């Protein structure tokens, strides 16, 4: 690790002050410390958010406000989350390991960086790590890479699970920064690579995630299906989050989000439009998959993700509509 200074913010205001002075935030450190060991991240100053007063889960009208420093373990253990937003608990519990979830935080999880192997290997060309150097993954080992939302510059996925559930649940990311407070719908938080893959999300310099707000519970059937190379402690190859309500044998409402399929957590309203108002059938699910994947592009080793996503979607919808409450 390169040398750095470490400060401890005693309040949110103090954290913002340090960030404004150019410090990088550290929460659990489970991604940042890893990146610093490999000298992919080389901050000169860190500010610890541990005591910055962002560690609570609180009722917010009919919704819930999850502080940025709430650990993934505490969020998944929260009885309100388990009862009213089970999709979020399920997605978190499908991620990482118990040890990591005890440190990983809500804000840090949203900002975790890709797991593209070339991004982690400083001897390789990578536009995300070193803008303008090229993209070794395009012609390389790209089995875990995205098939939707890619650009010439970068084909890496956002690898996390929690944000996929939050996308289906229509969460809002609350921030504070030099230009005041913002409420960012999670669908707008992560940025596809375009020609600036170094930037993963819309956070501005000095801007701090303070909390994530979940809207009122939908009461729908909620399932998180994660397909991966081993049964646990592995990132997703493809994941599907669904929140769905049936009415008289038809799909009355449905929100669908996909992980590790696109460069960002992926939601496509056109897919939901195919499903809403219809009776579940394999033909319907296949049609939804066709709409989802019409622009999908594989890069060789990740071609399998396209049929895999279609099957994962069908299997998830099958489960959700068969156990569906009216």
């Amino acid at each position: 690790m390169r040398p750095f200074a470490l400060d401890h913010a005693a309040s949110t205001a103090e954290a913002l002050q340090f960030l404004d002075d150019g410090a990088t935030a550290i929460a659990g450190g489970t991604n940042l410390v890893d990146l610093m060991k490999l000298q992919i991240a080389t901050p000169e100053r860190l500010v610890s958010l541990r005591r910055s007063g962002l560690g609570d889960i609180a009722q917010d009208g009919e919704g819930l406000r999850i502080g940025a420093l709430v650990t993934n373990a505490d969020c998944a253990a929260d009885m309100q989350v388990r009862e009213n937003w089970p999709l979020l608990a399920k997605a978190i519990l499908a991620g990482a390991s118990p040890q990591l979830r005890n440190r990983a935080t809500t804000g840090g999880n949203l900002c975790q960086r890709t797991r593209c192997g070339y991004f982690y290997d400083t001897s390789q060309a990578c536009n995300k790590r070193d803008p303008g150097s090229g993209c070794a993954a395009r012609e390389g080992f790209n089995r875990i890479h995205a098939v939707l939302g890619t650009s010439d510059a970068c084909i890496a996925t956002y690898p996390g699970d929690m944000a996929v559930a939050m996308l289906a649940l229509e969460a809002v990311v609350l921030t504070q920064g030099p230009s005041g407070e913002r409420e960012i719908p999670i669908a707008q938080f992560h940025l596809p690579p375009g020609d600036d893959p170094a930037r993963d999300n819309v956070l501005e310099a000095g801007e701090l995630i303070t909390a994530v707000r979940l809207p009122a519970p939908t009461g729908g059937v909620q399932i998180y299906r994660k397909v991966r190379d081993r049964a646990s402690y592995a990132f997703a190859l493809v994941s599907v989050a669904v929140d769905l309500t049936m009415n008289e044998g038809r799909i009355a409402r449905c929100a669908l989000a996909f992980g590790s399929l696109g460069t960002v957590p992926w939601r496509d309203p056109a897919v939901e439009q195919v499903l809403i108002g219809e009776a579940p059938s394999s033909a319907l699910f296949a049609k939804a998959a066709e709409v989802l994947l019409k622009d999908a592009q594989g890069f060789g080793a990740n071609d399998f993700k396209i049929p895999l996503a279609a099957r994962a979607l069908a299997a998830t919808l099958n489960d959700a509509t068969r156990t569906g409450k009216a």
Partner: protein
Amino acid sequence: MVSSTAMAVVNGVANPLPADPRRTLLEWLREDLGLTGTKKGCDHGQCGACTVLVEGRRINSCLSLAQLHDGDEIETIEAIGTPDKLAPLQRAFVTHDGFQCGYCTPGQICSAKALMQELADGWASAQTEDLTARPSPTPEELRERMSGNICRCGAYSNIIAALEEVIAADADHQGTVA
């Protein structure tokens, strides 16, 4: 900067935290405090060999900066039992051959101890069907809950057998005998 009074309590003893902010909790425990029971496997959060308990919770000490533990209570394998007074989990690992080389074992034992507390606290896992019900320690649940600890010798089935024995002896899952 770390304040000169920054301390963490390790196995009951208060220790000043290291001055270099780069020191990970793992390096501090092993290299500065000489507590070499905790192992470095991957150093990247991928194996669980470095698992210790912080405020009763299991974490990967390799990915945590020591200076972030001001005021924390830390427990390592050295405090869980001794060669002549093994903790029930340690005895069960011996009985069931829950290891071969033993390198992952301190992490496995620390992890298992925290697992029992998580069960007692009613935490769900990815294997829990009903998220709001009290979890039961089925083999599937135990495997999922131990999945943060890799064993290159592949002692997994014996580790689960050891855990099952200790959990069965602690029938109300109060986490008391670990």
